[in-house]
């Protein structure tokens, strides 16, 4: 039998549609990948299944009524989204926050960041087939959700920041509980790290896949831990500080590797830094008298103008753009969702990977469809 010539055959490339209901996609979205056997040549995300007209709906509501709606943009980062909305309204009103409110917002934001990253780590664990990581992470997350309950009465839809301050002062036992949870969590996170970083399977599946260069990051507009894992040293909390972040001392983890494992490590370090931020914020709060104001009375109408605010979401650079026309409800409220931009990088991230790597790579975006489709 003569040897077959390889050039004489046309090997098929195939488009595979993953989603909208697929174990790897956390939420409703579709990823279409072009595969050549096991390797991925092209990828195309399709989002929009969860579009509910959030921005349009805001135009029919008064400014105060949008805060609980902003909570529902993202189920696991609700605190930062309502904080962001309040921030843009405060900038429009030119209000300076009371100091106590600033620290309370930092504490609330960092609790939110930790529990969001824990949700991500849990999902990453299941994507890579380790259910223990999922269970342990959710167990730790439960403590932070309990802190949310003590602070503002709800676990996820917190509705805590207000335009001009926060909803309520912290209860007297909150600092004690918070400190216990943070101290406990710093130990427990090392246990989880033992499961992940010491596991050959886990590290091998993340290391060396889905490289992104700094140029790609800049061109695609990737922000957040995915960007910092590629060597771009930028964090809004430090470089364009809001609330009380400029008074606190923390490090921004940056790694130059640019692969999925680097993005994972950045997020783990961010959780440790958040613990430290919470501790420092409480130390600073002790110096502020307990009866000091935490909420300013603001006008219900916002003067005419356009305003922009941004904040460091657990997933990246969240931004809101407000056009007000002097009435009690916004003329236009635009949301810049970090995930919506990051997911557009899926082609760059997936090219050259294998099909089995897709869950691990896409988990690094930390998909949240509520804010993506809004």
């Amino acid at each position, binding site marked *: 039998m003569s040897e077959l010539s390889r050039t004489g055959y046309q090997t098929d490339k195939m488009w595979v549609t993953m989603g909208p209901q697929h174990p790897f996609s956390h939420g409703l979205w579709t990823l279409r990948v072009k595969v050549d056997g096991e390797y991925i040549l092209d990828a195309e995300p399709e989002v929009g299944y969860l579009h509910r007209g959030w921005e349009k709906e805001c135009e029919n*509501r008064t400014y*105060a*009524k949008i*805060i*609980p*709606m902003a909570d529902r943009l993202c189920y696991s980062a609700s605190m930062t989204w309502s904080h962001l909305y309040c921030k843009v309204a405060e900038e429009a009103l030119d*209000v300076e926050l*009371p100091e106590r409110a600033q620290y309370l917002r930092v504490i609330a934001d960092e609790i939110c960041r930790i529990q969001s990253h824990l949700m991500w780590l849990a999902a990453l664990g299941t994507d890579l087939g380790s259910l223990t990581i999922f269970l342990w992470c959710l*167990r730790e997350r*439960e403590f932070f959700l309990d802190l949310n*309950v*003590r602070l*503002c*009465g*709800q676990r996820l*839809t917190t*509705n805590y920041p207000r335009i*001009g*301050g926060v*909803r*309520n*002062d912290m*209860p007297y036992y909150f600092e004690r509980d918070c400190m216990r949870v943070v101290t406990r969590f*710093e130990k427990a996170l090392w*246990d989880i*790290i*033992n*499961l992940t*970083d*010491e*596991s*050959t399977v886990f*590290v*091998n599946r993340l290391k060396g896949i889905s490289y992104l260069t700094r140029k790609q990051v800049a061109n695609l507009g990737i922000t957040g831990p995915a960007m910092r894992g590629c060597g771009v040293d930028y964090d809004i909390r430090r470089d364009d500080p809001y609330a009380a972040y400029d008074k606190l*001392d*923390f*490090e921004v*983890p940056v*790694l130059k590797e640019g692969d999925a494992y680097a993005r994972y*490590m950045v997020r*783990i*370090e961010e959780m*440790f*830094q958040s613990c*430290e931020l919470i501790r420092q914020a409480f130390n600073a709060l002790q110096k502020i008298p307990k*009866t*000091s*104001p*935490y*909420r*300013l*009375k*603001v*006008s*219900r109408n916002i003067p005419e103008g356009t305003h922009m605010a941004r904040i460091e979401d657990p997933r990246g650079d969240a931004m809101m753009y407000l056009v007000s026309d002097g009435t009690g409800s916004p003329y236009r409220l635009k949301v810049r969702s970090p995930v919506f931009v990051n997911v557009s990088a899926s082609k760059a991230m997936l090219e050259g990977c294998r099909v089995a790597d897709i869950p691990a790579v896409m988990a690094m975006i930390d998909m949240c469809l509520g804010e993506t489709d809004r």
Partner: protein
Amino acid sequence: MAMKYLHKYPKKFRGTGGIRPMLQALKTMVKTTVHRPVTIMYPYEKEWIPDNYRGRPGLRFDRCIGCGICERACPTKCITIVEVEDDDGKIVRRPQVYVGRCMMCGYCAEYCPVDAMTTTPDYELAEFTRKDLIYDPRRLAFEGTTEMMEVHLEEHLQSNLDKGIEKPTAFFDTDRPVLDDNLCIGCSRCAKVCPTSAIEMVVVGQNAKGRDIKRPKLDSTKCVCCERCVIECPKDALEIEEVL
């Protein structure tokens, strides 16, 4: 401030394979074999929740003045003001909540000027029909309402803070309707709808035909800034003046 994980961990990673991962796994297993269970057998035992938990809204029927601030503050429009009989058989206005639409934001409790609306730790609200989810004012009452369930609106005025006064206040203490005298026709509709009877019609003079000219007079101590007079006014003569 130093990195806690990045400085310590990646350097220690010894590549793949070897006995170290196994030893580490064994260590973790031994460490976590004995511990308290974290599972809660839900319907039989429930998690402790604090009093400030934001469950369904609750109403203290006797405290409510029927001003309707909760109805207007509600983002999902799940509150409607209905007319019910109170204990003496008098018809009064009280909120009714369609809990199926409630998003548990707690705005009704926050903005209530008399703390009649509260948040309650009641979260098991499942019913078989949607109609059962409509809570009338009597059903809204919650047994064992504590002070923690009230949400107090404690805002500070920037003008007060500039003067060095730190006294919490709220919009129902400061904001008041003001009258544009040229637009008022003296129909006294504002006085009729006022839930706290803060508005009284007073005769200020007589017109060319010899009839009384009436103008509303506001009792600032009674007013709760519910804006019902502003909404009801047929000529838009009343407007809320905000104090900031």
